[in-house]
């Protein structure tokens, strides 16, 4: 049986993970674009990304685009699996087997 994941369950991180899991396999999203899409602040998003990265659920890559530093974020296979398990656990609470 799937169990709830306390790291993912925090509301902002739940938002971040569900957004990132919508992206295709190899796609990465820009930090600012993600922040605007989810309506989070820089600091808030940065802190939660750091927690998710430490857990191995997302990967954060920094690179230069047109000489400006850009941060790209992508969900890892482990993160995708953990999120799917978390959603299954939430659904199981609503419809117990």
């Amino acid at each position: 049986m799937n169990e709830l994941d306390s790291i993912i369950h925090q509301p902002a991180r739940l938002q971040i993970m569900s957004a990132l899991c919508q992206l295709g396999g190899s796609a990465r999203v820009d930090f600012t674009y993600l922040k605007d899409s989810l309506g989070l602040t820089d600091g808030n998003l940065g802190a939660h990304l750091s927690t998710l990265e430490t857990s191995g659920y997302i990967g954060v890559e920094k690179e230069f685009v047109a000489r400006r530093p850009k941060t790209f974020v992508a969900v890892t296979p482990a993160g995708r699996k953990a999120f799917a398990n978390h959603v299954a656990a939430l659904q199981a609470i609503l419809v117990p087997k």
Partner: protein
Amino acid sequence: MNISPDEAASALQEIDASRAAMRRAIQTHRGHLYLWLWGGIWIATSVLNWMYETGALRAMLWIDGAGMLATVVIGTVQGRQIRSRIDRRFLGVCAVLLVFGYCIWPLLLGDLHSYDFRSYRGAYGYFTVLWMQLYMVAGIWFDNFWFWVGLGVTVLIVATLLLAPALFWAVTLLLGFVLLGSGFYIRYCWR
């Protein structure tokens, strides 16, 4: 960790809301801009070819060049928001297809570049189908709708060339509208 059914329901609602927000964002990156751009270009070049045949060649090359430039600009701007890792193997396959299509096959199979009235439509069809080959490869590679766009256009172009050459420019014009319409479908209706 234990939560109540109400909390679980609210968490699932939050998940749906942020999925929807991201889906809306992704919808602006699905390739409809390319379909609009190349649909427009296709319509313009078809009209020019229909009116002037070989006389439209120079204008057509300029329009195609501008289209390629616009494609690079769109790719660069969108790549700053959501980007996929560059697939070098896919680019390699495209390069091989283009080198063969533009250099090797014309050299071996005859002079596709002699733009007399009769072979001009064939040459136009040939290069169109060559690019559609790339659409189909991209569709197979990335498992998306590009395959069907490429297949549909290829079938129509070849069938018209072989069965109804007099309708050739009318069909290419129609295909331009199909590309344009596909762009609107993908942008506003595809889920």
